[in-house]
Structure formats: structure tokens, C-alpha cells
């Protein structure tokens, strides 16, 4: 009976309240709380501390050069968007792995899961953040400076994206439509200048009316909210984009380039102006190249870099690359080769001299000098002579790497790109078709030679942003980059003229078929890597 008494007590004390719980109907008032994701911010929370406008800047800034976005394997995004694309096509770096049995985008078998990612980064990470900022600032004159900054960052992002694909669903983005038509690249480019001019005007007016005010200091990873630096950035970006039109629309190119240089804030002139993405404000930026090179073992120095830098005995070489483990010399990998065994292409080749904390450089002052030098040889008013701008550009690059004085280097009129030999597979060697351009400026050289000289030095200075270098290679044909050793494009991409663009993503064909059709119709050829972009118009 004692046992039964205990059970009865249990029944009364534990079970009955439990049953009573069941009878508690209509207790659904907590349902809204339950159905709100506790690990995400609500709209209401985003109103605190101006988060709704501020945080999306860091989202935009972290996705132009993609840094870690996903748990675990975020660096793969940078690898796909930047490294296995522009970094390789520009000759800066060589891929040391043999994905998909060695048949992949690096040797022109365009891999859909790779070439679509840059598009996704721009339209799923940068543009939605921009759109959120636009929605918050529209109709509020006091917030136009915020929108102006968003516009500048947007142009930085989309200019890189359009230089990969060409036409993009850009000007009608965010209209609420589920299917967005594509704009021709010319429309996209001309809108860049309008947007930049408007942003420069808005920010200039804000800075003049509110000196020292930095409302986005907590969210801006590039300049800590310093609008004057952003105005300079906008002018520099405008100069870069203007130069892209040098062959397709020379008049507009000159107009925008001269306006950029002539602006009261001007373009970058010293390293201190450079736009750098680095850890700040609680956000850790880990340079993905370090992971890709050292952890993944997937990338090494490019053969062209070896050829130019060893040929020129370039003092910057040790700041850019490390000697190979096996023989202590510098060895680069040629792009577009077939790798049967990864280990043949890791230790015998030079790693990148990059640390986890190395900032990601969006744009540099050195690049500006080379752009201005090119403008000068085209007869534009660039605020200096071609030679002085060229030489200042080299020295600025040396400064950037801490490589000392470039005085002797600038005078070198004999050294040329060195022949290339692959320590693992001899058939990849290059002894012919090498660049013969020298360093020393000669005012008497024909313009084309001067152009090659400027672009070759700019190519060295722009490292490691292969995306920009690839764009300038396509525009100017310089420097002379080795062709792929194996071309798996089934005839779509010409080995000599090299890859000119990326195909539109498969996701667009699946979910925006009507839109992508308008994009294809704007192309000068088929939707493949062999078709030239609008500005790719050098005769």
C-alpha cells in the first residue's frame, strides 16, 4: 500500500499538472515569438543604431573581393570568383591543382559551377545590400550622402562584374520584377559615370557643409567613413573606367578621364590613398590568397610573372613571391596546362608572399599614375608628362611594396622578359613569343611601344588583382601573356587572342531565360569565352 500511496502522490503532483497543461488552449500568444528566428535580426532591430543603413556597407565591401562568407569553406568563393578566373587569365598566378581531371576553366573548358559565381556574388550579396540602402535613403535628402557612398561601392562592384560577362541585368535591378532584362554594356558603363559624378557632387557638398563628420565610421571597412577619401576613390575609379573606353569611345574616355584628374580632390597620388580591405570594426578579413596558396595548395606564381620579374631583375620579386622549396629559385606555373599529379606543381613552384593579415587592395595610387601616363600618350590633359607619370608610377609601386628606390630600375633599358621553363614538364616551356619590352622610357618610341611599356609596368604594379589586369590585357593586348598550353574550349576560344569573357551563369538560363536572352542579343558573338566585350575594341 505504501507503494500505491507514492504513486498516487506522483499522479497528483506530476501527472495532473502535466495534463492541465494540455488543456491550456488558446495559449498561442507566444507563437509570434516562437516563429521569429532568434538568431537573425528583425526589421525593428535593424532600426537601432542606424544599422539598416550602416551594416549593409560592410556586406557590400566584403563581397567585391569575396572574403569568407560561409562557414568552413568561404575562401573557396574568392578562389572561384577571383583566383581561378582573372588571377590565372592575367598570368599573375598559375593553378597547381587538377580539378575535374585537369579539364576546367583554367584551360578553357568553362566550368559552370565556377564561372557563375562572380555573378551571384554581385547580385545576391552586393546589390541587395545596395538596394536596402537605397530604400532607406530614398526621399530623405539628409541621407543622400549615405546613398552616394553606396553608389560608389556599387559601381566598383558592377564594373568588375560587367568586365567579366558584358551585359548585365543592372539598371532595372530591384524593380521587383522576377525576371530582369539585361542592359548592353555601353548603357552600364555610361551609367557608371553618371552615378559617380552624382556621388562625387553629393559627397563634396556634404564634406563642405559638415567638415570632419564621419557618420559611417563604424561600418566602412575601407576608409573608416572618411568621405574625402571616398571622393578621391570615386575620381580614381572614374579614371580607370574612362580609360576602358579608350578604343570604343575615345571622346568620352578623354572627357571623363580629364574630369577625374581635374577634380579638386583628384585621384590617388600616394600609397596612403589606396583602398584597402582589412580587418576592422570587429570584422575579420583573412586574406583568402593565403588560404588558397598555403592551405589548399591550389595556386602558385604565374609563369609570366616569373618571366618578367626575373628577366627585369625586379627588386619587388621577393616581396611578391617566395622561392620554390625544392631549388630555392623562382618558378611560375603556366596557365592552361594539364596536371596529372598535383605534387608536381606544388613544391617545385613559388608560393605567394601573402600573410593572413595582408589587406586586399581594391585600387592603388601606382595604377593611377600609369592610367594618367597612358592618357598623356593619348594626348589627354593628365596633369603631367607621360614619362614623369610612368616613372612616378613605378616608384609608387616600389613604395607600396617597400622595395626601396626604383631609380636604377627605371634606367634599365636592356633587360627583357626571360624565357620560361617548367621544372616539372618541359613541354610547357616558352622560348618564343616573349615580350621584348624594356623598362626605360624612351620618348622617341612609337606610341604603341610606349603603351606596351606602360601597361607592362602597370601589370606588375596591379598585382595581385588579376581581374583588373585581365581587363586591361583584353583592352590593350598587353603585356604579352603566354597562351594556354592546352585549349579545351572545343574551338570557342582562340588560343592566341585568349579568353575574352565569361559565359552567363547557368542559373540565369534556368530562372531568367527571357532576361538572359536580351543579354545574349547584346553580345558581339555567342555566349562563350571567345566573344569580345563592348569596350574590347582595339583594332
Amino acid at each position, binding site marked *: 500500500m505504501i507503494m500505491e500511496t507514492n504513486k498516487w502522490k506522483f499522479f497528483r503532483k506530476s501527472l495532473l499538472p502535466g495534463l492541465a497543461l494540455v488543456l491550456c488552449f488558446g495559449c498561442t500568444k507566444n507563437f509570434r515569438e516562437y*516563429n521569429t528566428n532568434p*538568431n537573425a535580426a528583425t526589421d525593428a532591430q535593424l532600426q537601432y543604431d542606424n544599422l539598416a543603413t550602416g551594416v549593409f556597407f560592410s556586406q557590400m565591401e566584403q563581397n567585391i573581393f569575396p572574403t569568407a562568407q560561409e562557414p568552413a569553406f568561404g575562401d573557396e568563393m574568392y578562389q572561384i570568383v577571383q583566383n581561378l578566373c582573372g588571377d590565372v587569365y592575367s598570368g599573375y598566378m598559375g593553378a597547381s591543382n587538377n580539378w575535374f581531371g585537369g579539364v576546367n576553366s583554367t584551360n578553357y573548358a568553362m566550368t559552370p559551377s565556377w564561372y557563375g559565381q562572380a555573378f551571384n556574388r554581385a547580385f545576391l550579396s552586393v546589390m541587395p545590400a545596395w*538596394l536596402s540602402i537605397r530604400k532607406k535613403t530614398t526621399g530623405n535628402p539628409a541621407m543622400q550622402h549615405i546613398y552616394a557612398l553606396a553608389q560608389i561601392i556599387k559601381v566598383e562592384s558592377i564594373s568588375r562584374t560587367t568586365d567579366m560577362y558584358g551585359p548585365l541585368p543592372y539598371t532595372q535591378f530591384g524593380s521587383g*520584377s*522576377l525576371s530582369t532584362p539585361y542592359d548592353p554594356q555601353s548603357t552600364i558603363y555610361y551609367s557608371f559615370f553618371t552615378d559617380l559624378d552624382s556621388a562625387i557632387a553629393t559627397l563634396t557638398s556634404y564634406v563642405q557643409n559638415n567638415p570632419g563628420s564621419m557618420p559611417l565610421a563604424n561600418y566602412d571597412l575601407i576608409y573608416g567613413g572618411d568621405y574625402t577619401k571616398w571622393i578621391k576613390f570615386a575620381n580614381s575609379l572614374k579614371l580607370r573606367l574612362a580609360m576602358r573606353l579608350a578604343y570604343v569611345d575615345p571622346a568620352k574616355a578623354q572627357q571623363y578621364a580629364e574630369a577625374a584628374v581635374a577634380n579638386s580632390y583628384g585621384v590617388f597620388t600616394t600609397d596612403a590613398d589606396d583602398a584597402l580591405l582589412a580587418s576592422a570594426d570587429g570584422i*575579420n578579413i583573412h586574406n583568402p590568397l593565403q588560404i588558397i596558396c598555403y592551405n589548399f595548395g591550389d595556386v602558385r606564381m604565374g609563369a609570366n610573372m616569373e618571366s618578367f620579374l626575373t628577366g627585369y631583375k625586379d627588386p619587388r620579386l621577393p616581396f611578391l613571391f617566395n622561392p620554390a622549396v625544392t631549388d630555392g629559385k623562382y618558378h611560375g606555373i603556366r596557365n592552361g596546362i594539364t596536371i596529372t599529379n*598535383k605534387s608536381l606543381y606544388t613544391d617545385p613552384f613559388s608560393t605567394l608572399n601573402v600573410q593572413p593579415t595582408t589587406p586586399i587592395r581594391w585600387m592603388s595610387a601606382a595604377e593611377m599614375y600609369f592610367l594618367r601616363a597612358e592618357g598623356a600618350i593619348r594626348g589627354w590633359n593628365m596633369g603631367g608628362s607621360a614619362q614623369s607619370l610612368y616613372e612616378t608610377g613605378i616608384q609608387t609601386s616600389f613604395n607600396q611594396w617597400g622595395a626601396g628606390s626604383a631609380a636604377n630600375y627605371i634606367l634599365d633599358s636592356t633587360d627583357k622578359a626571360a624565357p620560361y621553363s617548367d621544372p616539372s614538364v618541359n613541354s610547357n616551356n616558352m622560348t618564343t613569343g616573349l615580350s621584348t619590352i624594356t623598362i626605360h622610357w624612351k620618348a622617341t618610341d612609337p606610341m604603341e611601344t610606349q603603351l606596351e611599356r606602360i601597361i607592362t609596368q602597370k601589370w606588375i604594379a596591379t598585382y595581385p588583382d588579376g581581374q583588373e589586369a585581365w581587363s586591361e590585357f583584353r583592352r590593350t593586348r598587353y603585356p604579352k601573356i603566354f597562351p594556354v598550353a592546352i585549349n579545351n574550349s*572545343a574551338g570557342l576560344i582562340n588560343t592566341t587572342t585568349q579568353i575574352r569573357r565569361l559565359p552567363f551563369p547557368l542559373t540565369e538560363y534556368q530562372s531568367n531565360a527571357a532576361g538572359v536572352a536580351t543579354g545574349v542579343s547584346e553580345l558581339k558573338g555567342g555566349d562563350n569565352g571567345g566573344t569580345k566585350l563592348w569596350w574590347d575594341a582595339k583594332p
Partner: protein
Amino acid sequence: MQKTAFCSGNVVQSSSKILLVMKLTLSLLIVGMLSANARGISQTVTFSGRNVTLDKLFDVIESQTGYSIFANKTLLQGIRPVTVAARNMPIRDFLTAILKDQPIDFVIENRTIFIREKSPAVAMVADLPPPPITVTGTVTGPEGQPLQGATVMIKGGHASTSTDEKGRFTIEAGAGATLRISFVGYQTLDIPVKGRATIDIVLQRTLSELNQVVVTALGIRRQTKALTYNVQEVGGDEVNKVKDANFINGLTGKVAGVTINSASAGIGGSVRVVMRGEKSLTGNNNALYVVDGIPLPNLTTNQAADIFSGAGATGDGISNLNPDDIASISVLTGPAAAALYGNQAANGVILVTTKKGIAGRLSVNVTNNTNFLSPFVLPQFENQYGSDQGDFSSWGDKLQKPTSYDPKDFFNTGYNATEAIDVSTGSDKDQTYLSAARVDAGGIIPNNTLTRNNFSIRNTSSLLDGRLTLDLGAAYINVGEQNMLSQGQYFNPLIPIYLFPRGDNIEKYKVYERYDATRNFKTQFWPYGDEGFQMQNPYWIINRDFFINNKDRYLLTAAAKYNINSWINITGRVKLDDNTTIGEKKYYASTAGLFASPAGAYYRATAITKQTYADILVNIDKTLTRSLRLTANVGSSYLDTKYNADSYGGNLLSVPNLFSFTNVNQTQATVMQDSYHDQSQAVFGTAELSWRNMAFLDLTGRNDWSSALVNTTASSIFYPSVGASAVLSDLLHMHSQTLSFLKVRGSYSEVGNPPQRFITIESYPIQGGFPVTSSYLPATGLQPERTKSTEAGVNMKFFRNHLSLDVTAYQSNTYNQLFNPVLAPSTGYSSFYINAGQVTNKGIEAALGFNGRIARGLDWSSTATFTLNRNKIVKLLTNYNDHGTGQTVTVDSLSVGGTGSYMMSLVRGGSIGDIYVTTLETDEHGHIFVDAASKTVLADPNNTYVKAGNANPRYNIGFRNSFTYRNFNFSFLVAARIGGVGVSVTQAIMDRFGVSKTSADARNAGGVKVNGYLIPAQPYYQVVGGGVAGIGSMYVYSATNVRLGEASLAYDIPASVFRNKIQGVTLALTGRNLFMFYNKAPFDPESTANTDTYWQGIDYFMQPSLRSVGFSVKVKL
């Protein structure tokens, strides 16, 4: 033995009523749990006593023999006490003795003694015809209700009468005559008059085959006869006959309407159970598990759905259960009964009933199951051609003598040893069941282990004079899993093992680490690099990259049942289920750089799921009129699930192989927290109206308030169902020698499904401490997903129930599907949620059974199941009008993932599970294009996908047989799956690397003949096996297969052998996946890497399925 005087009567002995009711209940439970192996009576009874009641004697028999006695209580009314003296008397003799001259006899089946009415042939016959007397009396039902219209006749005579509205009758009968009382829907009863003038008779309802009762939704027991939908019951012994670490595998081939695929993750892996086809495009399609009436939380985790993942897999929640605790399993393939569980049960329910303590002597079962495991289906490898120095592929010269390297040697003989003990004890009023089990298993891949400990206790007691029944249970489960692998590139030792260059010597790599002088410890030795497949030294992977899961689970259950009066009782239940899983990943220093820094990497994730379920149920069983009976349940339930998961980890910063958060590189660490709190509250009711126990009408309704419905158009969801059945054999008096039973049934039900949690309230995910924009368009105006189902069926039994046939045809229509189409990135969102999409399923499930003696002493029982389902995507998104833009959008196809060469796609007019593949370039005639000059084939430059087929079977057949001869039982199961396709990337990659038998055969033949050209093997296979997954169309295989799924040979050693010191020993040899009669695929088509809806029919270096051979010993103390 002395006989006492025969005395007939109908006095209900109230003192034994409770006991009998309990005994009946217990007996029902026992039916399912008894070993099916015993046959042939050789156990003995020792007992002496005077004027002992039969109840007492039955207790004695049960406790001494372990046999269960199943007695219909009315049969025992008025049975006289007997005097008996027996010593080691065989049970059959003992029973014969005590039942001699009683109006009952017995039948023994599967260790269960069924007490039944004595057959007419041996009924009492009077010696001399005494003078007729007038007999009066009443005929009532078991609840005391008078039965009007019952027939009372003199057996063997002509006189007959029927009862009036009070159930009264008057008839002239000889004093020695026997009255036969019959009434439609009730068991016919013969009562000897024995000179009495007044005889009151209680009739029992007719139950086909001795009170067949099954457990249905909410744990409600229902007569099989009354069911308006299909319920299939499988006994615990049948499921466990050939033991598997996840007992759900033991259902394969044994129930119709169910497709079961086991995960390729080896022992203890998850199981995919889809009933009557996949219904939901984006939601869950797996069956719900319900244990003792209470739903189990869904503890499934993300699974491999791409070419990379698959390492560190884990078993599902149901695999935690101790198979030995299972009394029986009911499978509700349709949603009719499931309407009571709400949305969770839209995909069908597997109801598990666990064991309880049994009154009587202490009974102890000790079992050991040991199985040895080997790979079941492996691809075919080559050993004739070597590899060039330093080259990883095997396209080198023909070897002087074939290499001895065989990838099969990599596999261990796996083992799975289970020790289990259960103890049952108790008195009439208080029974206790205790069990403990331990599983120790090692997989075929070295270093893959599984351990599991189960403890449970359950106490059932009867209080307050039997008005209150308490059922309290507690269980603790601990599971440890190490290195479970299902498929994929990452951490998969099978890739380097299968592809290993045949010119090299694997022995070199078995020493997987070598001393590194600069680092002062041993680092990985694998000069080949990752080959683009993230390959590492296979022996390094299994010894130095660890995936360890540890699960602790507590289950507490309390149930109380209170009988308010004879026809109404109230039941309340509470169950707490608390599961904590800790998953760790430890990658040792020098693991491939994609996964770890030079010092290694460490990740630790904790997931806690707490589910509280409570319900209260009022059960009514009331006879309304003489022929109308109402069984109803009204109740409410509460289900609350809290989930909280967090993880931290990353590359190690400085100290190699120190796996601690303190050593993780904090700047690169990944931090994750994920949590939710779901709650649903429901009221529900069921009503079953039974007319003369021959025709039934079944109504259910449930209204669900669910937290996920916030911000949708509905605040709650109502699920109705209606069903009807008629036992035509009784209604139309169709009983004959041929037809024993015929029932037709039909039901209609609606089930709803709320949208996914969180999506109706816009939120901004936080990444690295900062909010980012949402990836989906905010969902507004969503409606719950609905499934409308109808089913119709027939249950037939022939030849005195020896042959049975159950056939069900069904169709379901799932519409308003919550649909998550991919948006063009140019919209700024990757997807959006809308109600669209409609999927229909229709099919047939059938079971044909035979049970009987086919030769002297040889019994055969056999069941064949047949499953056919046709799935159709009626629409995806048709003319969807976007509110924002006024644009009309139509989506007619939707990719749901793939490898690039293999893709699952949802296409309007197609089916869920359709597989599309890439092709080679074809010429204008559709033949494979061969470049005449270079003699090469090319991948289709347009990347067009063609449909290869569907991953689902056209139909499944299971054929289960059991033969019993004396103490031997032999049983086997043949499982066949007809139709469906699968794609083997494994074969493609093996072809490309020149390690497959096909590639060697092609080289021996001088090449591959394509479109009239002989193409050299190497360039050919480097194209068709190239890329990430080869050319899909070249690697599509029929998934049709026929296998010997299970076989067992058991022998019962009777207790007498042990002089009754122990109650019996059963020895068995068992095997699973023993033999493929037919299979053309280089993998097991029933194995799947993913137990969700998609990523089916794809073999990306899956772990082979397991063949298991073993033995079991069961000792009953």
C-alpha cells in the same frame, strides 16, 4: 487426476474480472512479442492442487513454460475448478487434462495457447435422452446489453426461437440437450442444458481470427475488422529476426506501400522510409515515428546532397531505439488515421509499441546477436594494366602478371554484436519491465565504430480497485559513432582505394605517416596530392581524421488511465524526450590544406532537442442501441519542441593535434548558432459507429494551432477524415468453406502542413556579427499545404483463414504546396516561397498471406507484399501573379541539385525523382558523334540534359516465408524492386583513371566501338568519365534488383533438455543481403546517401551496402 462435477452456468465472477481483463490485454501484447520460432510442445508443467481455478492454473502454465494464454473471458465463465496432480507433464497433456470435460479446449500457436470453445464434434452429448424441460433465460452482450433477435436452437434438433427486446427466450429442450445461441456479429455459443431451467447467456462479439486488435493512431487499440484504412502489423520478433542496428531495416519487404532505402553510412545509419510516394516538393517526405502513441521528434540532420559531403554521417532518431524493446510495429501507410497526428503524419506513420511487464513469475530473456559484415555490391576492378611512374591513373602498360592489388582488401570484416537482457516481473496489479542492451559494432571501413547502450524501465500498475492504471517509463540511450561515411569526395578513403594506381604498391602507403624532421612529428605520406578529388592517403583518412558523434537521450513517459464508469475512461500522457548530440571533428596536422591548417583543425557542435508531448483523451465505448455501438475519443494534445545547436571550430593555430577551442585560430574560426521553438496545440476527436459489429463508420477531426502559421492566411488547420467499412461476409452471410472473411473499406482524409518556420517573418541573418540581407523574398499570404487522400480496399480471407489477401488502392493530391523556386540572382534573392505546385500519387498496395500445415509436421507461413506507386507533378508554378510587379510567372521545371552530369529536376508532367543526365555530342541521326580524324567523342557542347528515368521503383515485391518443422524454423525473404534508374559516378571516375574492369576489357579489345569507329580506350574514357562526374548518360544503370534479403534458421532447445533449469534456448543463424539474384548496377540500388527527397539514384563513391551473416542465442531463464 480427479474430475469434479460438471456445472454449467453464466455467473460472472466479478473477483476475477479484473484479472481476466488484464490477462486479455497482456495476452494481446504478448502475441506480438513472442518468438515465432517455437513449434512442437515439449515444455512441461509440474503442479498439484485441489479445486484449483483455471485462472490459477493458467498462471502456473504461463510462469512455468513462458507460454502465454489467450482466453476469451466469457469462455471461462462457469468453468469449474479442477483437481490436478502433474509432474513434468508435457504442456499439451496438462492442458488436455485440466480441460477435459470442460466446454473449452485449446490450440497452441507460436508459444501462445488460445483457449477456445470446444468444437461441436466433441461437444458434450447426453448419454440418455431425458425428458424435455422448459428452459428460459436471457441473451446479453459482453457489456450486459440485451440482444434482441438472437437465435436459440437445440443443437442437432429442429426447435428454435429468438429473443425478445429484453433478450429473453423460452425453449423446450431435453435435459441433456445442448443449446446453440447465435447472433449476427457475435460468437455462436453452445451451452449444455444439464437439467437447468434457467440459463443466462453472454455472447462475445465475433472477432475474426481470435480478437485481432491493432494499435492505431494515438495508441488507440482497434479491431482490425473495424478499420476503414490499411494498417499492417509486424511483430517485434519478425522485425528482429535478422537483427540490424537500425531495426527499421527489418521492415524492408514486409509491408506493402512502403519504400525503404537504407543510408550508405554503414551500421546504424539512417533509413529512408517513403509511404505511398513522395508528396511534398520542398518539405519532408519521410514517415513519422510514433512510440506508444507519442510522436518522436525528428532528429534527422543535414545529409550529403552534393559531391563533397558524406563524411561524419550520423544515424537518425529511430536508430537509437533498442530493437528488443519492441513488441510490435503497426504501419499506417495512408494519412487517414494519421489525420489524428496532424501535419507530421501526412507521410504515413510507423507506430511502435514497446514491451511492458507481465504478471506472473519473474521472466528473464538474455540474447546475443552477432553479425559479421562484408561489402555486398562492389564495382568491378581491373588488375591487368599498370600505371606510369608518378602518374596516378592506370593507363600504363599491360603488367607482366596481374597486380595482386584488390581494393576489396581494404575492407575489414565488420561486426555487430548486440547483447540484450530483459526482465519482466509483476503481480496482478503491478508489473515491471526492465531492459538493457549494448551494441558494439565495427564497420567494413576500418576505424568506423558504433556503440550503443540502452536502458529502460517501465512500470504498469493498477490502483483504486482497478479504476486507475498508471504506466510509467524511463529510458536512457547513449550512442557513440565514429567515422560514419556515406559518400562524397571529402574524407572518403574509397576514392584513393578504388583509383589507386595499379603500378604502385599500396603497402608503401599503409604506413600513412612519416617522421618529419623539421616538425619533429610524423606527418601524412601521400605524394600523389589530391588529384582534384580532395584525395588523401586512405589510411591517413581512417586513422587521422575523426568524426565522432556522441548522443545522450532521455525519455520519460507517464500515462494514467482512469475508468469513470464501464463505458468511459480518461487517459492522460506526458512524454519528455531530451536528446543531446555532440559532434566533433578532429583533423590531424598535415591533413589536406582545404580542411586544416598545418597544425590541424578542430570543430565541435552541440545540438539539443527537447520535445514535450502531452495529451489527454476521453475514451467512450458505449452501446447505443442493440445494434449500434459508439467508440469515440475526444482529446487535446500539446507538442513543444525546442532545438538549440551551436558549433565552434576552425584551424588550429599553433600546437599541432591539440584539439581544443583554446588552440583554434580565433580569427578564422567558424561560429554557428541555430535554434527554434515550435509549438502546436490541437483538439481532436474520433468517432467510430459500429452497426452490429459488421458495418463501421469512422470520423476523425483535428484542429491544429501551430506556431509556424503565424503571418499566414490561416490561424489553424483543420484535418477531417471519414471512412467506412463493411464486413460483407457477415452482412451477407457469405461464409463458406472457401471464403472465411470479406471486408470492403474506404476512406477520405485531408491533411495540412504549415509552412516552414520563420519564413513568414522577415529577418536578417547575422554573419560575423553583422546583419546581412535575406536570401529569400519575404513570404506573405502563405497558406498551409494540403493533401487530400482517398483509399479503398478489400480484406479477404479464404479457406478457414489460411489464405488472406489485402488490397488497397489509393490516391492522394497534395496542392498549395509550399514551393521554393529559385529566383534569378538578378532579382536580388536566391529564392522565394509561395503556394504553388501540385503532386498526385496513386498506387496499389497488396499483401497475400498463407498460413497452414503443408505436410505432416511442417507448417508454412508466407506473405507476399506488393507496392506500386505512380507520382506525378501536376504543376509547379503556373501563372503566378506577382503582387509587386503585376508580372505573371510560370515555372515549369526546377533543378533540385546534382553533380553537373546528373541532375534531379522537377518538371511539370514528370515525377519527383526524375533524373536528368548530360550526354555526348550526337550527330544528326542521334548517334554518338565521332570525330573521324581524331577518333574522339565529345561532351555535348550545349550541356543539354536528357531524362534518364526516375530514381523510384516502378514496383516492389517482398516475399517472406517461414517453415516450421518440430523445433526448427527456417525463414527467408526475397525482396525485388522493379524499375527505376541510378547513375554511378564511381564507375565513371574509375573508367577515367583506367582502374575499372570495363577499361581493361576495352584495352584488351583494342578500344571501344562507337558508331562504327573503334576508339582507343584511354581517350574515350577520359571523355565519358571526364569532368567532375563523367558523361551522365553513359553511366545510367537500371535499378531493378532481386535479392535474398533475409534468411534465418532457428532451433529451439526445449526446457526439458535443461531439466527446466532454464526455460528454453533459441539458436539461430541469420543473414541479411545474402545474395543478388539480379542486379546490373555496379552498386546496391537500394542504398542511398541521402534519406531526404532528393539526391537519390546517384552513387558518388558510396560506401557499399552490407552483407551480414551471423548468429543469435536467446536464453529464457
